[in-house]
């Protein structure tokens, strides 16, 4: 009992901070909005194609970013999990390096690259592949590129943890039983890495759904995602009720998607639970 109480005390500071600075304001906003306008703000959101389009854009950008991050992050993570090179620590530092630069600075970096007079356009014009500069900045494409750049480290780290825990002998066992490298990946490595894929995707998807700086700076004034819309409602339209509604809908969408992922993979994860043998 004493141990339990001590553990509780250890969790107390963080729990209190969460309660005071997160849960209380959230509840306050919800109560206030409903007290003033009832559920009108929520009804407005779901009946206005303008808002629904923003929700769909947010989900679409997040899904694409998550999928591409997984595609690019997996080989990197697998290589790092299996390499015996002494450079492995350096590789992890390089992966973590983007964390040292804020999303704002990174977005400005992409502006330099993607702009009408940016490096990429100048290069392509110079070689003569195109005759007119491509419009890349202030598009959904730019947002997705910036987002992937921002989120890949999280994906790699989530995958790396799980891939490292897969016993290399399991792969050797598959080879010895006649599975070529592709079959070994499809039947052994990939299924065993699903916990990392799921946690990496949920993490990256959530961060992308709630991102503000990247869509704001790389998407231009006409590109809207849920988080940028919240700020717009408050700063431009002075509509706190709409802002609250959008925040809650965003939260609900993320929770529902996470719940669906958890439920649909629960059976599989349970089987894998403590899946490491011997």
């Amino acid at each position: 009992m004493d141990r339990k109480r001590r553990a509780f005390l250890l969790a107390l500071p963080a729990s209190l901070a969460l309660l005071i600075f997160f849960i209380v304001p959230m509840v306050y906003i919800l109560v206030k909005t409903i007290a003033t306008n009832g559920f009108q703000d929520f009804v407005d959101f779901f009946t206005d194609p303008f808002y629904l389009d923003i929700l769909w854009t947010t989900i679409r950008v997040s899904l694409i970013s998550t999928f591409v991050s997984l595609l690019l992050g997996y080989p990197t993570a697998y290589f790092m999990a299996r390499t015996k090179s002494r450079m492995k620590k350096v590789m992890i530092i390089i992966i973590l390096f983007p964390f040292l630069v804020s999303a704002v600075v990174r977005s400005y970096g992409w502006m330099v690259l993607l702009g009408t007079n940016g490096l990429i356009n100048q290069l392509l014009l110079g070689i003569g592949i195109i005759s007119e500069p491509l419009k890349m900045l202030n598009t959904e494409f730019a947002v997705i590129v910036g987002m992937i750049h921002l989120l890949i480290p999280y994906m790699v780290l989530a995958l790396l943890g799980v891939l490292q825990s897969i016993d290399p002998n399991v792969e050797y066992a598959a080879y010895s039983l006649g599975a070529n490298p592709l079959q070994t990946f499809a039947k052994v490595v990939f299924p065993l890495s699903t916990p990392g894929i799921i946690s990496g995707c949920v993490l990256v998807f959530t961060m992308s759904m709630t991102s503000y700086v990247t869509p704001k700076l790389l998407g231009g004034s006409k590109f809207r995602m849920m988080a940028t819309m919240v700020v717009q409602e408050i700063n431009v339209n002075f509509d706190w009720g709409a802002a609250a509604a959008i925040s809650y809908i965003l939260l609900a969408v993320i929770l529902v998607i996470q719940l669906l992922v958890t439920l649909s993979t629960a059976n599989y994860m349970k089987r894998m639970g403590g899946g490491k043998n011997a």
Partner: protein
Amino acid sequence: MATLELKNVTKIFGDFTAVKNFNLDVKDGEMIALLGGSGCGKTTTLRMIAGFTEPTEGAIFVGGKDVGKIPPYKRNVGIFFQNYALFPHMTVFENVAFGLKLQKLPKAEIEQRVSEILGMVKLFGLEKRYPRELSGGQQQRVALARALVTRPTILLLDEPLSNLDAKLRVEMQVEIKRIQKELGITTIIVTHDHEEAVSLADRVIVMNAGQILQVGTPYEIFDHPNSTFIADFMGFSTFIQGTMGGAAVEGKRPVTCSGKTIYVFAEAAEGIEPGSACVLALRSEHMELVQEPGENVVEGVMEAATYKGHTTRLEVTGCFDEKIYPAANEYIELEAEKPVMVHLPVERLCVYKNNA
């Protein structure tokens, strides 16, 4: 089923030579043990046979054919891993059927062969379980069944008994030997445990620092190791320095150890010059406590006694400069400084040149 031949195989990692000029001929159906401490190159040798790593020099032949260019998934080598390496996301049935499914065999044949091999390793009714739901011994049987079901030409066993408790060890030892003989598969066992090696193999190869030190039958290796290093590794406890005496009388030669004369068989001392330094080696269980003085009987005093259940291991000083460690088949209470007489049987004494 096939012969296996390693010719001048060398493996170098950076500036470390893991295996050096290794030569080995394994007959069809033979069971060989590679015995040695950690880092002796035995596991590297196993991995080269499996094709997981390539020899830096030399070649490996299976059934007379050079397999150097054949990738591991086409070698048809069955491997049993020390940590079993079962597929945690597959049931027992799926684990064992993995190799057969890759061969695209008809479903009925897969089912028949899986149940046949599970019967052979005495695992019944556990087909739908996952590895983590099995005991260590059961997991081991699944791993063995999985390695055998594809009918490999060569079977590699990495420390097959090391993770088991004493009772299961004996059981699995008998099983592995029975199945291996029944299927007649050429088998290589890698182990650091001399009991595992001598109990399973037809021939034992002792390795150290990437090289072969001795090749012999389990009996030869266990009772007549060809160096003090191997004797020590094979569990010899007592080593006594001495000076080799003159010509043989009645097939025995005298050795002077700390002023005492111990007789050894002349054939055991072959090639050791009279007057040269030598070392006598003996196992604890081959020394006996006696009441009467006689040939090869030395007197000393008891310094320590460790009761081990079926034996008591003594530490005796005063006989030689070195301590000796006889074992008795009974419980002996420690009585410090108690005089004891120990017989060193001439037929059990191994003699080595002292190069040190």
